[in-house]
């Protein structure tokens, strides 16, 4: 049976892993290559490395970090952040990524999705969407696509954009619900379900993981195909093993033992 994936995310600034609470107030959490291997050994199904560098110098360093991380990592490895062109994607793939995640560049240049898919295959293209919930009513909820860490509105409807991304050749959607990100208050199951039930490709839920039960909720009520978290894994709280054991007890298929 296909299992639900638990994905460990590393937010990387140059050579360092950091993690923000609602994208601010960053804390140091070690070397990305070392952390990636540690997460893989402790049961992560996949690693996402998200470049949050602000400068060109840091971005150049990032490729070195990707190369070092990929070197001994024998589970799927996705790299995102700052990928704006096919050439950016190719550099990251050449450095050892299996997939790239694209966010704002896909919004401004949707054809980039198809370009990367044509060169590397749809399975290599993850479209990351930062969503802000905009309405709740009897028929459900809706959300707006946000950019620049939630600081910029687009006016785009989350569901419409996710469906378009799938049509254009995305292999997966990485859906981060902004109101939850870094809060550890749980995933936004309503927005996740809205997208996951409507698109024909897998949806990775992100934003808000704080306890093993939150993962149960996002699979049972959010209908996610995978769930991503960062800080709760880095600092040794709620190790991936305990998340997977909680999921297995709830009857959700997971890869265990790894």
């Amino acid at each position, binding site marked *: *049976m*296909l*299992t*639900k*994936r638990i994905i460990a995310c590393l937010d990387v600034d140059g050579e360092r892993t950091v993690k923000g609470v609602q994208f601010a107030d960053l804390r140091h959490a070690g070397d990305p290559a070392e952390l990636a291997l540690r997460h*893989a050994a402790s049961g992560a*199904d996949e690693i996402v490395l998200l470049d949050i560098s602000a400068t060109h110098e840091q971005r150049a360093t990032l490729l070195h970090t990707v190369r070092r991380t*990929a*070197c*001994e990592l*024998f*589970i*799927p490895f996705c790299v995102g952040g700052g990928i704006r062109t096919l050439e950016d994607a190719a550099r990251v*793939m*050449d450095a*050892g*990524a*299996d997939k790239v995640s694209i966010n704002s560049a896909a919004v401004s240049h949707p054809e980039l999705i198809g370009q990367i898919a044509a*060169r*590397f*295959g*749809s*399975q*290599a293209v993850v479209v990351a969407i930062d969503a802000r919930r905009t309405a709740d009513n009897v028929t459900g909820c809706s959300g707006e696509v946000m950019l620049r860490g939630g600081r910029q509105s687009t006016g785009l409807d989350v569901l419409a954009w996710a469906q378009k991304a799938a049509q254009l050749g995305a*292999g*997966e959607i990485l859906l981060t619900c902004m109101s939850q990100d870094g809060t550890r208050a749980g995933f936004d199951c309503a927005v996740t379900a809205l997208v996951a039930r409507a698109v*024909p*490709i*897998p949806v990775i839920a992100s934003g808000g993981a704080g306890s093993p039960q939150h993962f149960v909720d996002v699979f049972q009520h959010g209908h996610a*195909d*995978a769930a991503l978290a960062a800080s709760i894994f880095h600092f040794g709280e709620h190790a991936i093993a305990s998340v997977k054991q909680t999921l297995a007890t709830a009857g959700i298929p997971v*890869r265990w033992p*790894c």
Partner: protein
Amino acid sequence: MMAIVDYGAGNIASVERALRACGAECRVTSLPDEVRGAAKIVLPGVGNFAATQELARSGLRQTILERVAVGVPFLGICVGMQWMLEGSHEAPGVAGAGWLAGHCERFPHNAKCPHVGWNQLAKVRESRLLAGVEDNAFVYFTHSYFVAAGAGDVARTDYSVVLSSAVERENIFGVQFHPEKSGDVGLKILRNFLAI
């Protein structure tokens, strides 16, 4: 020396890294002469089946067919395994090797596609490729087209259909999943291929 055939389809560096980690002496090559001299041939591949038409254009297809016919061990990974069939509905008219009957099919609409993630290998019979791999072991898949269950299967996997996840016949081997991305289980399978 093992040849990892490069025909411009996606990213094959991870296959090379994993094989080297298993102790293989290998070379990524797009030259028929280098493939001709190789003791083993690995055909990786991600993405679209249409990319395999480059094998015919470059002469690699003919070289691979000739070498496999004289007993050189061959491992096809993902699209590389799909190429072992006659063809694929993903790219009608592009010929595979034809070692296995039939064409790859797309997953039915009731399943999310691509099939992405860790799924299980239900072993069908004992094999050299999966020796020492436990029944129901988890491996990583990412594909939109599949090989239907057939006579050459050594493992099958359930994902809305029952698909062939590993095949073995004499010196030809194929895996639909990515052993290079399947952790210790995947490395074990690559080491088994190295030992053949």
